[in-house]
């Protein structure tokens, strides 16, 4: 693996993804289509959304789905479809931002910790392992309570939850690389520490990165939705699926099913998209990981 360059590896990875690969290929493609649809919705939200998501009384209160409002209106007479379209923007921004931050922090800390070793490594690993032992949601709740509402606080809460995953992955890789012979050999011919990392460690990790990222994204979408659902998410003016779902419970017993069902369905669909993509990749690239 180590002597393959990254582009080569990606093409070899892509060549393995095709519908002919059976169910796994199908999983990947369906997952990708779902995720791309949501990304498309998020980017073109201003064009796609028929109404202002925050404008109240664009229709009646609790109008059931009809030709004017395909998904009905909510308790304030806002168009649910428009809120869903704008909501995809919120979810994807927070998800991608927290993924980028957590992978950057996790990878950096993992590299340093694994490379430096000693007491520093022990202490940091212990801390990360304890974070990891916590249920992600409970940890996110604790952080969100302290940090308050808003896009950035929520993003930071999610970031902290996922840092340990990357940290553990990279640190483990660094440690095993440190042991292995070809690094010894590279040291002997005078490769510097940084070259070692980029030349040998990253290529070994790269194949699992898309898997970890997409499974993580799936989890992040759920955790964000849960925070919003529990009232720890975003301020009221930002359309947010989790919060809309919470509000949808209000008139449930009056058989008003649409205000909760649609936003919730989006949460599940987007999560499913990321999971299908990640699981499919995992089974093709790393059959040992998830067992045939």
């Amino acid at each position, binding site marked *: 693996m180590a002597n393959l360059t990254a582009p080569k590896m990606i093409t070899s990875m892509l060549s393995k993804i095709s519908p002919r690969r059976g*169910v796994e290929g199908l*999983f990947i493609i369906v997952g990708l289509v779902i995720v791309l649809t949501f990304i498309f919705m998020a980017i073109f939200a201003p064009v796609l959304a028929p109404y202002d998501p925050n404008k109240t009384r664009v229709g009646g209160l609790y109008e059931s789905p009809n030709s004017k409002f395909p998904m009905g209106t909510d308790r304030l007479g806002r168009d649910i479809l428009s809120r869903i379209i704008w909501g995809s923007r919120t979810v994807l921004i927070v998800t991608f931002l927290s993924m980028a931050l957590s992978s950057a922090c996790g990878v950096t800390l993992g590299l340093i910790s694994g490379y430096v070793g000693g007491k520093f490594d022990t202490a940091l690993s*212990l*801390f990360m392992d*304890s*974070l990891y*032992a*916590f*249920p*992600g*949601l*409970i*940890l996110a*709740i*604790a*952080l969100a*309570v*302290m*940090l*308050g509402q808003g896009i950035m606080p929520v993003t930071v809460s999610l970031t*902290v939850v996922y840092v340990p995953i990357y940290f553990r992955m990279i640190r483990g890789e660094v440690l095993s690389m440190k042991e292995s012979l070809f690094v010894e050999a590279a040291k002997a011919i005078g490769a510097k520490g940084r070259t070692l990392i980029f030349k040998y460690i990253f290529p070994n990790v790269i194949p699992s990165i898309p898997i970890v990222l997409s499974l993580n994204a*799936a989890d992040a979408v*759920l955790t964000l*939705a*849960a925070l919003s*659902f*529990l*009232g*720890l998410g975003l301020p009221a003016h930002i359309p947010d699926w*989790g919060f809309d*779902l*919470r509000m*949808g*419970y209000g008139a*449930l*017993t009056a*058989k008003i*099913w649409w205000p*909760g*069902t649609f936003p*919730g*369905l989006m*949460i*599940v669909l987007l*999560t*499913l998209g990321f*999971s*299908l993509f990640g*699981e499919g990749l995992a089974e093709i690239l790393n059959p040992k990981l*998830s*067992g*045939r």
Partner: protein
Amino acid sequence: MTSLRVYIIRRILLSIPMLLILLSVVFVVLRVAGDPVSAMLGGHAPISEIERIRKQLGLDKPLYIQYLNYLMNLAHFDLGRSMIWGQRPVLDEILEHFPATLELSISAFTFSILLGVFTGVFSARRRNKPADHAIRLYGIITYSIFIPWFGLVLQLIFGVYLGWLPISGRSDPRMAPEIITGLYVLDSILTMNLPGLIDSIRHLILPTVTLGIYLSGIYTRLTRTHMIDILQSDFIRAARARGLPERTIIYKHALKNAFIPILTMMGLQFALLLAGAVLTETTFSWPGMGYFLYERISYRDFTTIQGTIVFIATLIVLISLIVDIIYVYIDPRIRY
């Protein structure tokens, strides 16, 4: 047998530093991430009020003193007092809500394992056939379920439209059993209260199914993977050659061996169970720890939130201890 006892004692001793580290992490997260008082009051309160509460919580002292106080209090099982209403001891309030969580957890956990193991075995025996693919998809879908949404759908179908099952709470107040253990199903049985028993079970069904299906996916895959491995192993082939009935081979030999990694996962899954319980309880207004946490979050009741998280951390350490001990009893290779 003595080595077994030594192992268990060592394992118990080992969980003390584990707990200490986890509790320290809770402290770090809750103090470093922000100021509890401004988080609670939203930053708009008068300075004098903020100062008063800081003093009351001991937050005016240096951080290391706060840390020592925190640990000392925990050592005395003191989680502080709630910051709203009667300012009752947090531990009392948690323990009041704990049986409801325990009841839901036991029932959902059992349901998820039965469902997961059953689908996993089914899938493994039909490897790479359509039923197998369908079950693998099921495994991925359960992983993607958002509990509040799934709960909402079940409430709509079975509660609102069909009217078969109640959609919130633990019991009809008129039929609630006399409390002995706090587990309503058990209490109803102990007090021979048949209507109470039926009522408690009816309330338990939807939350159990919601949380149970969410948790079952991981057991489905794990059972499938390990059953596939084990069904190809020598001792299964040998068992077939001895003419044992297929049922004995699958359930007595293969499943028992596949169950060891499943048990390991059960310990790890406990954290997920707790997180899932918070959402399930909120969804179904199930008056357990999770619902309690949700209520106090909306008041930003700092001591209660901290106390609940400490309680959960302790539970996690405790469960991993119990799982490790059960493990020894199941796998004779560790026992000797």
